[in-house]
Every structure is written in structure tokens, then in C-alpha cells.
């Protein structure tokens, strides 16, 4: 999987991150792109490793089990931290290096990870070629996570299972340490065996594409996919034989699949739907659009520097007063629409609860955001609610073209068709309409492809004094409505890759097409960076919990 992520990262044009089994969250500074890429890829690898292993399946399940049944999550997690962090650190630096050149000092900002990286580099040192080192790291970590844990859970039941059922050598970190004690020679032996297997069964060109000091981009060309899969599986089997001889009970490369299916059946029988996504198939892992979609489902970009922004509901006011408040020190008016549940996640409200007035059954909330003082830390974002489409029409009249007036509707709002039908005429009359993409693109792009709609896409770099962000705009109706992604360059590239994969020749790029809405778009992106606590694609479920 990582080879495709590598290509998505380097194909075409003080950060931190965290990963749970639900999703990963990124706080990217936007100042040093190589660093941001390392952090992004680091978290992606946590997700990737869990999605293809037995231990990862157990983590996915126990993280979601309610009450006492979920208590084994932390022991399970603590037993695989070193394996996870070693792979994520090694792979992220290697892939980012392929894009940015040598990144020897990049981990200086993350001192706790330097020893993990150095240990992995040492362990993999006999393996020739950057792609083979990457694949060997994957194989090692995968083997550490492919333990009989699912079998043991099935034997005693979800609620009864304890870590004591698993022998030490069958726990991921004990295995990783076991390999570290063996030293680098074992990885060299496994690589040599995999090399021989590859040239016996495939064209030698694949092996030649991955020379020492070579280019990761060349070696991960799509034409080599099958051969490299074979290489990784062969290396895995060689490592597996050594670990088995050391007393471990190992699983085959995809030996988690039956156990995962049985575990999911057990979970469904005992707890119903706990919100687990289906894992990608092997075929999907070679499809860049499917891979991009999988990552997008799990990523969250933190724009507020940690805690969500504070927000308050402003008391009901006349429309003229709203116009004055919102336009007080600015030259643009942005009207936002978000579902109430999304507003609850986006902001810290007084009393840690969404105001009762916003929890109305009438659909998403339309409001104008008023920054009390955006220069001050801890500033509060006031929300002046527009109750009806007529309020928006009146607001537009009061605004009277003083500057751009734009409407920013999150895509999750449009799932409420009755609400959308009621509000859309007022939105389109008021000014340019932008749809902030906060749902998985799988929910709407395939329909565009089926309908044969031509889609125009434009990428934008957004720089302010502190950071650099990236945005992607696309329209499927010649600019009547623009869909908008605000994130970092990796997410934007993944979204562009997804659109390319789904739409093919229906997709074109035309920067000039933005001309009519450029001022409104500029104001909107600044507005979102200042007032939206985060962006993600899970507003209609999946992905993040909002603890």
C-alpha cells in the first residue's frame, strides 16, 4: 500500500499528528513542507498497518466496544506501540525523502523517534534498493502484527479475552524486539530469498528498477505492482520461518482475513453495528482512487491549533444589525450552513453542549460568524442565526454589494434534501455558493461520473503570514456551485487523484474558470482558516469519534 502513497505524495505539483483506530488528526504548521509530509505519512502508516493485520483488527474492534468489553483496548495498544511507531517513522521519512531529498535532520524536531528510526535503518541495512527496504519494513511490521490474537478472542469471547491469552513472543512489540536482537543479517537473508523468487517468476526489470541509491518513484511504477507484491510476500515468508523457529505462532501474509471476518460476526452478534468499515480488498489497494478515498475517510486537519474554537450563539438580532456585526471590520460577508451535529464537533460551546436553539429539527443551521477579536488567543466565534431563506435575502439587501457575499454550505447539509430545496434558491441569489467538502467523495463523485458530467478543477496555494495551506476547487455545473477542499497539499493531491481516477477524461483543469468568484473565494478561504476548527470528510459518519 505504501508504494502508492509514495507516488501520490510526490507525483505532480512545528507539526504533529495523532492516530486512533477511528482516524488520524493532523496539526500541520504549513511552514516546512517536508516536515508536514513526514507527519502526514507517519499517521497514514498507522492506519495502513492496522487495516491489514490480525492485531490491527483486534484494535479496531476493542476501540469501539462499549463499556467494560472495550477495556482490553489499551493493553492491546500498549503491546504494539514500538512496532507501529518504528514502521511509521521509518516509512514516513523514507517516502518524504524520495520527494524532498535527504531528510537527515527532519526528525530533530521529534527526538523520541530518532532511536526508532535509527534502529529500523540498522535492521534493514543489508536490504538493497529504497523500495525493497520499504517493503521489508512493511513485511517485518506486518509479521509482528499477524499473531493468533483473533483465534484466542474467538475461543474465549470478546468480554472474557485478556492479554494473558497471548504468549509474549506472539505480541507485536516482543516480536519486533526479537527481530532487533537477531540483527540485520536476517533481513538480508530474507531480501536475497525474495530477490531470487522475483527474478524466477517476473521480468528482471522490476528488480533493476530498485537499484541502490535509486529512485523510489521509478521502482513503484504501476507496472511493477504485482512483482513487488510477490517480493514482499516472499520476504515475509522467509522472516516468518525464522520467527516460527523461534517459537512463535505466525499467520500467513493475509492470514488475518478469516479471523477478522469471524471476529466481526461475533461483534455483530453481541453488539450490533459498532461502525467498522470494511477493509480494502487487495485489488483496491492497487487502485489509486480507492486508496485516496480510504485515506481521506480517516484524515482530519486541525486548523485551530489543538482545542476547537470557542463559540457562542448570539442573541436574536435584526438583519441590519447582523449585517453590521459581520461586516464590521471586513470587506466580505460569508454565510455558513452546517448541520447541528457538525457545529457541536467544530466548536466548544458554553456548558460543553450545543445550544438548545441550534438543536432544532428544521435541518442544518444557517449563520453568520462574528469574530469577537480574531487577534486575541481564546477569541470567541459568535453565530448569528438566519432563521429563514427570507432572512438571507434581506441580509443580501442590507449588504448591498459592499464587498463579496458568499455562501459556504457544507456538503453534509445537502443530505437533507428538503432543507436544501428550501434554501438553495436563496443561496444562489445571494452570491457565489461554495460547498465545503466534509463528506467522503465516494458519496457524490461516482454519480457525476455515471451522469457523464464535465468537472473543472483548480488547485490553489493559500499563503498567509504564518503558514501555507492548499485548497482545491471543483465544479460540476460550469461554476454555478464550487466544491471546496481546504487542507494541506497531500490531502488536496489525494482528492485530485481521486477525482482523476473516478472521472477520467470528464475532468479538466482551468484556472481561468475561477475568475468570476476569485474575490469571494479568497475571502472564504481566509474565513475558513480563521473560524473552522477543523476540516475532515466524516461529517456523515465513519472516521472520527469526537471525544
Amino acid at each position: 500500500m505504501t508504494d502508492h502513497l509514495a507516488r501520490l505524495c510526490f507525483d505532480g505539483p512545528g507539526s504533529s499528528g495523532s492516530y486512533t483506530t477511528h482516524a488520524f488528526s493532523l496539526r500541520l504548521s504549513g511552514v516546512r513542507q517536508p516536515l508536514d509530509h513526514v507527519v502526514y505519512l507517519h499517521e497514514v502508516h498507522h492506519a495502513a498497518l492496522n487495516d491489514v493485520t490480525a492485531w490491527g483488527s483486534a484494535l479496531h474492534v476493542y476501540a469501539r466496544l462499549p463499556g467494560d468489553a472495550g477495556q482490553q483496548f489499551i493493553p492491546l495498544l500498549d503491546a504494539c506501540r514500538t512496532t507501529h511507531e518504528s514502521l511509521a517513522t521509518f516509512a514516513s521519512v523514507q517516502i518524504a525523502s524520495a520527494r524532498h531529498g535527504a531528510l537527515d535532520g527532519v526528525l530533530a524536531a521529534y527526538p523520541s523517534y530518532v532511536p526508532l528510526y535509527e534502529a529500523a535503518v540498522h535492521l534493514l541495512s543489508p536490504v538493497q534498493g529504497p523500495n525493497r527496504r520499504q517493503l521489508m519494513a512493511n513485511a517485518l511490521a506486518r509479521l509482528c502484527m499477524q499473531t493468533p490474537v483473533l483465534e484466542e478472542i474467538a475461543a474465549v469471547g470478546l468480554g472474557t479475552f485478556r492479554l494473558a491469552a497471548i504468549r509474549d513472543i506472539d505480541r507485536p512489540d516482543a516480536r519486533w524486539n526479537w527481530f532487533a536482537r537477531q540483527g540485520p543479517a536476517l533481513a538480508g537473508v530474507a531480501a536475497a530469498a525474495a530477490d531470487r523468487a522475483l527474478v524466477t517468476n517476473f521480468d528482471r526489470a522490476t528488480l533493476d528498477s530498485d537499484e541502490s541509491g535509486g529512485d523510489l518513484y521509478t521502482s513503484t511504477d504501476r507496472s511493477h505492482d504485482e512483482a513487488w507484491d510477490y517480493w514482499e510476500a516472499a520476504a515475509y515468508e522467509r522472516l516468518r520461518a525464522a520467527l516460527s523457529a523461534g517459537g512463535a505462532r505466525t499467520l500467513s501474509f493475509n492470514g488475518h482475513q478469516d479471523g477478522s471476518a469471524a471476529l466481526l460476526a461475533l461483534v455483530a452478534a453481541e453488539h450490533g453495528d459498532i461502525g467498522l468499515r470494511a477493509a480494502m480488498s487487495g485489488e483496491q489497494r492497487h487502485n489509486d482512487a480507492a486508496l485516496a478515498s480510504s485515506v481521506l475517510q480517516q484524515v482530519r486537519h486541525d486548523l485551530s491549533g489543538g482545542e476547537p474554537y470557542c463559540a457562542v450563539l448570539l442573541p436574536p438580532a435584526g438583519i441590519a444589525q447582523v449585517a453590521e456585526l459581520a461586516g464590521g471590520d471586513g470587506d466580505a460577508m460569508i454565510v455558513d450552513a452546517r448541520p447541528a451535529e457538525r457545529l457541536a464537533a467544530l466548536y466548544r460551546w458554553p456548558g460543553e453542549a450545543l445550544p438548545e436553539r441550534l438543536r432544532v429539527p428544521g435541518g442544518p443551521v444557517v449563520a453568520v460568524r462574528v469574530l469577537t477579536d480574531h487577534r486575541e488567543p481564546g477569541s470567541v466565534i459568535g453565530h448569528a442565526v438566519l432563521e429563514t431563506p427570507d432572512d438571507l435575502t434581506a441580509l443580501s439587501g442590507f449588504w448591498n454589494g459592499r464587498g463579496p457575499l458568499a455562501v459556504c454550505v457544507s456538503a453534509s447539509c445537502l443530505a437533507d434534501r428538503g432543507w436544501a430545496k428550501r434554501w438553495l434558491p436563496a443561496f444562489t441569489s445571494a452570491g457565489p455558493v461554495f460547498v465545503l467538502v466534509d463528506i467522503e467523495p465516494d458519496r457524490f463523485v461516482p454519480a457525476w461520473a455515471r451522469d457523464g458530467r464535465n468537472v473543472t478543477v483548480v488547485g490553489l496555494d493559500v499563503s498567509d503570514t504564518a503558514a501555507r495551506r492548499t485548497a482545491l476547487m471543483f465544479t460540476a455545473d460550469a461554476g454555478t456551485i464550487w466544491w471546496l477542499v481546504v487542507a494541506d497539499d497531500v490531502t488536496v493531491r489525494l482528492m485530485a487523484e481521486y477525482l482523476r481516477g473516478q472521472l477520467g477524461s470528464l475532468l479538466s483543469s482551468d484556472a481561468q474558470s475561477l475568475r468570476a468568484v476569485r474575490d469571494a473565494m479568497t475571502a472564504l478561504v481566509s474565513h475558513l482558516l480563521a473560524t473552522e476548527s477543523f476540516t475532515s470528510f466524516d461529517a456523515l459518519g465513519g472516521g472520527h469519534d469526537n471525544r
Partner: protein
Amino acid sequence: MTTDELDAILASANVKGSQIQRTELEAICRSVCAIPAAEFIEAVTQAPGLSWDDGQTRPAGYFEIHSRHWWIDMSDAGNRQHLLAVTTAAALVDALRLNFSISWVTRVWPAVLAIQSISRRDDGLHLGLVRQGVTPIPLNLAASVNPSDYADFTKAVDGAPAVLPLEGGGTITFT
């Protein structure tokens, strides 16, 4: 087990000061075993009193990449006891050629062995350990320690020669 015995270990590794970080832990590891220091440090950093430069603790429940530094406050009795336990475990794993991780042995050995003495001589560290006889898995370990592993460990300890050499030049003596 008293943490005063740690002083001999610290002296043997030439570690001084009230704050211990990675470099000092590497030296302690080398003084008792040939196992890669990363595993030793991993076991030590599970210490109850691990300190971070922003006052936070190790993230629970999720993986995180961050920029914080950690250290171990050696004025804390719990930290000293944990470091002593990990160091003893590392010595046991290496001397007995055990397949168990240092973290695992750290939790288990106090149920099977007791420290009689730790001394530093010119030729290295000398650990005197007393076998406690056949003991069941302590209740506090029952949820995390596999019974077969526990049986294998006790068997290895019971069957160990009276004196085993340590990597750093000293010995472990079992009585």
C-alpha cells in the same frame, strides 16, 4: 528489593545526576547485557514517573508523533525501583538467553526471584539473586501474563547454573 542497590548499577555505568535520559540508559544497558538498547529503553520508559518537558504524560489510547522530550526523575523512589527492575530483567534475559522481552521479564521476575545483593567490582556488576521456589502467577499479573510463559520462565530460573557471566563482565549468582 531496595532501590539503594541501584547505586551500584548507576556507578557501574558511570551515570550521575538526578535526571536520566536516553544516553544514560544506553550506558546502563551496556553494563549488563548485549541486547539492543532500544528494547531496554522501551521497558524503562514505561516507568510510572516518566516526565515530559511540557508536563504531559505518554499519550494513552492513541499513537502520536510529537516534539516533546522525556526524562526520568531519579529522586522518585518509584522510578528508581522500576529502573532497578528493568536492569535486572535485562541481565536475566541476556544471561539466561531467554526469548522473552525485557518488558515482560521486568514484570515477572519479582514473583520468582529476590535481590540479595548488587555490588560493583573492578570486573563489573555482580547480582546476587535468591530463588523463591515455585510460586503461582501473582493476581496482579493474571490478566497480562500467559501461564505457559510463566511456567517456562520459572523453569529457566530453576534450571539455571549457580553462576552466570554478565555481558559487561560481572556475574549473576543464584542461590
